[in-house]
């Protein structure tokens, strides 16, 4: 941090990067065990009626191109490792939006043997969008909240997670 503050160009560059990120967040979508209900609503959010693209959001096929992971579902045993792998493949800084009640706290599937508790147990989540399934408006609101958060410079869940062990040691 001290290096950056001593270099005036670095802070300008950071500001520029953040500005660019807010105006064109690319998302990737992964279904980690949901019933498809949230997934079709995410797709509906991207299509002409709701048109999330007006916020600069673009759905991306590859995790390596994405800033935001939109993730649905209660994370099944089989998809847990895949979810982690997709998250790790994304370049930092990265953000996660968990969509749906089952991604928030397993929802209707609570007690089923093949699921984890929530997406938050597997990867750090920035924004939860509850609902079964949440309406497209709710998903847009969730993404808008995330963009607000990035704009305000608040630490992302990824950064908080990275700082956690250091805080314990200190």
């Amino acid at each position, binding site marked *: 941090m001290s290096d950056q503050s001593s270099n005036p160009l670095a802070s300008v560059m950071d500001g520029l990067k953040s500005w660019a990120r807010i105006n064109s967040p690319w998302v990737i979508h992964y279904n980690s065990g949901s019933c498809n209900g949230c997934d079709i609503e995410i797709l509906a959010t991207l299509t002409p009626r709701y048109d999330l693209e007006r916020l600069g959001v673009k759905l991306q096929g590859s995790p390596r191109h994405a800033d935001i992971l939109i993730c649905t579902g209660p994370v*099944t*045993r*089989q998809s*847990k490792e895949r979810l982690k792998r997709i998250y790790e493949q994304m370049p930092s800084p990265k953000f996660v939006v968990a969509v749906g009640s089952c991604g928030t706290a397993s929802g209707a599937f609570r*007690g089923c*043997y*093949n699921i984890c508790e929530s997406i938050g147990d597997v990867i750090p989540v920035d924004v939860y969008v509850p609902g079964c399934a949440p309406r497209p408006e709710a998903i847009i609101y969730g993404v808008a909240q995330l963009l607000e958060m990035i704009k305000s410079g608040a630490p992302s869940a990824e950064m908080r997670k990275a700082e956690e062990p250091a805080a314990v040691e200190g």
Partner: protein
Amino acid sequence: MNTEELLQQAEELLKPWAKEVSRPEDNRLDVRIEREDLLAAVDALILKAHRGYLAAITGLDHPEDEQVELVYTFPDMAALVNLRVSVPYADAQVPTLCDLIPSATLYERELMEMFGVTVVGTPDPARLLLSDDWPEGVYPLRKSFTGFDQLETESES
């Protein structure tokens, strides 16, 4: 042909192997057979007489008898023919239907991992639904399996 006639015809076809025949519902015929006769019965019903298609293989666990019961359902229009085969835990094996009905492969893979019934000769015995790290010998749809927590504590101990 109406449902009644279809069921009567199916009953006639399955007679050589039937150990027990019942009509629990208007449109359903339950025929209990030995597992050795399964292929012959399916061959007679589906391939020779073209009566219906394989809709599902349902597993039922009977812990009190230490048995797994398999229900092969063959619908034809509104008529339903169930072939029921029971296999003991100690010798949980059935022959594959895939030589007669290729589409049985997915149902058989499901059966193998969910109930621990070995389907002898099934073309692809790989796991279909359970995760790669699922412990061997744990079959989730048996009544003795009661959940994730039990699984965790067992693997820890």
